């Protein structure tokens, strides 16, 4: 907080101590966050002998690219990544459409039946049927082993809808009023006026949905069975446990630098890359959005 720093005066030892402690502890926290990632990064790129003899700590020893290329070319990694991408992009777009079109009417205090809808949405947030009934629904609808099964159950997250609704409630009514006088209908108002004004909340909620779709493991585990439909998270999990079997199949001379631990690490590292690439976008919208969200309450 810049206000605070301008006014801060180091006028007693306690002040210095608190500051110092903060620097040190946050430094440790940062290291704790970073170190495990550095470790897997190093293992993914170190030679098999270094990895299995346990000499890799935080930097690669005898760097090689074979493990990574093995994962990319000879496993289902890329297919799984594609599946996750399809689910995430398709899901997020659909979710945002459904969420925004639901939040807008509900943000109008005069809407008849508004209370009823809100009660239904909030109730379904608090009480749900459970895993088994949800499974039965998907099975009955014939959606087993489809992308739809991975997208549709999550398509509207009530909490996210409420965030958008709250934000829209805070927008000035005057702009809408003048648009109505000019003869604009609701759909037009929503898409041409409200949405551009709601960019921060739309960005934040899109991010929340996207993270949800990207990281979801349970639905993929429950609803997919064919190997070609695995999502990335499922692939990672399976690879961790089947790394040893994979090595056995690799008894050719090409595999000199691929180790069991290397396979696990490389898979993890390759999966982290998309997240790191998205990071600047996350940083820009998310922190801004959370500030807005918390101010709204």
């Amino acid at each position, binding site marked *: *907080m810049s206000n*605070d720093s301008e006014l*801060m005066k180091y006028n007693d030892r*306690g002040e210095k101590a*608190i*500051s110092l402690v903060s*620097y040190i502890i*946050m430094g440790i*926290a*940062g290291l704790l*966050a*970073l170190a*495990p990632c550095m470790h*897997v990064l190093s293992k993914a790129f170190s030679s098999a002998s270094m990895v299995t003899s346990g000499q890799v*700590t935080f930097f690669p020893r005898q760097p090689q690219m074979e493990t990574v290329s093995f994962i990319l070319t000879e496993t289902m990694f890329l297919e799984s990544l594609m599946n996750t991408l399809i689910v995430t992009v398709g899901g997020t777009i659909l979710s945002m459409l*459904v*969420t925004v*079109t639901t939040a*807008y009417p509900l943000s109008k205090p005069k809407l*008849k039946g508004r209370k009823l*809808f809100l009660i*239904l949405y909030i109730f379904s947030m*608090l*009480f*749900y*049927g*459970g*895993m*088994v*009934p949800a*499974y*039965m*629904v998907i099975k009955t609808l014939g959606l087993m082993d489809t992308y739809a099964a991975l997208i*549709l*159950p999550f*398509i*509207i997250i009530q909490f996210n*809808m409420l965030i958008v609704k709250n934000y829209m409630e805070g927008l000035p009514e005057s702009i809408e009023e003048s648009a109505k006088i000019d003869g604009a209908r609701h*759909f037009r108002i929503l898409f041409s006026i409200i949405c551009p004004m709601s960019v921060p909340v739309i960005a934040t909620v899109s991010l929340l949905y996207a*993270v949800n779709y990207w990281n*979801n*493991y*349970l639905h993929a585990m*429950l609803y997919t069975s064919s190997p070609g439909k695995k999502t*990335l998270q*499922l692939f*990672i*999990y399976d690879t*961790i446990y089947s790394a040893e079997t994979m090595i056995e199949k690799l008894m050719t001379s090409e595999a000199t630098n691929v180790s069991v*631990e290397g396979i696990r690490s490389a898979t*993890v590292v390759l*999966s*982290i890359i998309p*997240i790191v690439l*998205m*990071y600047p976008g*996350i940083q820009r919208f998310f922190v801004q959005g*959370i500030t807005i*969200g918390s*101010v709204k309450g």
Partner: protein
Amino acid sequence: MFKITGCQHKRGTASLPGTQQLIFRKSFLYMKENGSLYLMLIPGFFFLFIYKFIPLYGISIAFKDFNIFLGNNPFQAIAQSDWVGFDHFQRLFAGSQFLKVLSNTLIINFYKIIFLFPLPVITAIMLTEIMNKAYKKAMQTLIYIPYFFSWSIVFGIFYSLLGSYGPVNIGLKEVGLDSVMFFSDHKLFRGLLVFTEGWKEIGWNTVIYLAAITSIDPTLFEAAWVDGATKFQKIIHITIPGLFPTIILMLIMKIGHILDTGFEQILIMYNPAVYDVADVIQTYVYRMGLGQMDFSLGTALGLFNSLIAFILIISANAASRKLLGRSIW
């Protein structure tokens, strides 16, 4: 269609009382005029209905002798199965697993709340005390990236770190100690769950509290400075009380989720060796209810879970409303 006269009186059938008729007509007129608003509500509600309300019908599986092979699809099977009342619940509560699973759920969540809930508040406060903007941004960034990692990734990372050939165990062996099987050790596994959840989520929660701190009225801090308050006093008397609403909100939400937090984490990280300390309600439902196809038991336990969670969150919210005037809706 009827005409709206200058004094807005509406005629209707003579049998309805005047005011009710007026309200009904007004609502109807509103709905006609704003039809597109209701159109907008349809998609969201459609999906809500299918994925949240229809499964409620499936709850009846807990009260039936469910045979999934009856009829053409599971829902017909539900309709065609016979009622058995509370038999499954009796079986559930009498079984030895139930108490174990319930206690694991409560204990693990208790540990997580005690150890992990205060930390983000403390880190948020510490971050605001850091003057150097670059350092602050760097540390903040580092600690909250893990939030975006899936549990598969976090599992992979820690399995690498703590596995038999990982650096931790190698280090232990070098100083002459035995290697520790973190993932199959009864005493350590819960600690592992708490630690990895902290590693993943503290950064995210810290950012939330940081945002809340920035929305505290700066004039409060100025006034305190004028009065000669030390940094420590400012923290105790301004920052923490200012965070109170956010803390309460987060706490209520945590309590409401007490019965299913950590499900995906535990599912991914556990293995048969640690079932007895880490098997929680949801993992048991997953394994027994779906995996082993004991659908009725799984539904019964799931229903129990949902009911208790519902009661918990309603009570926590009511308590907060009574005691502190804050509610989440």
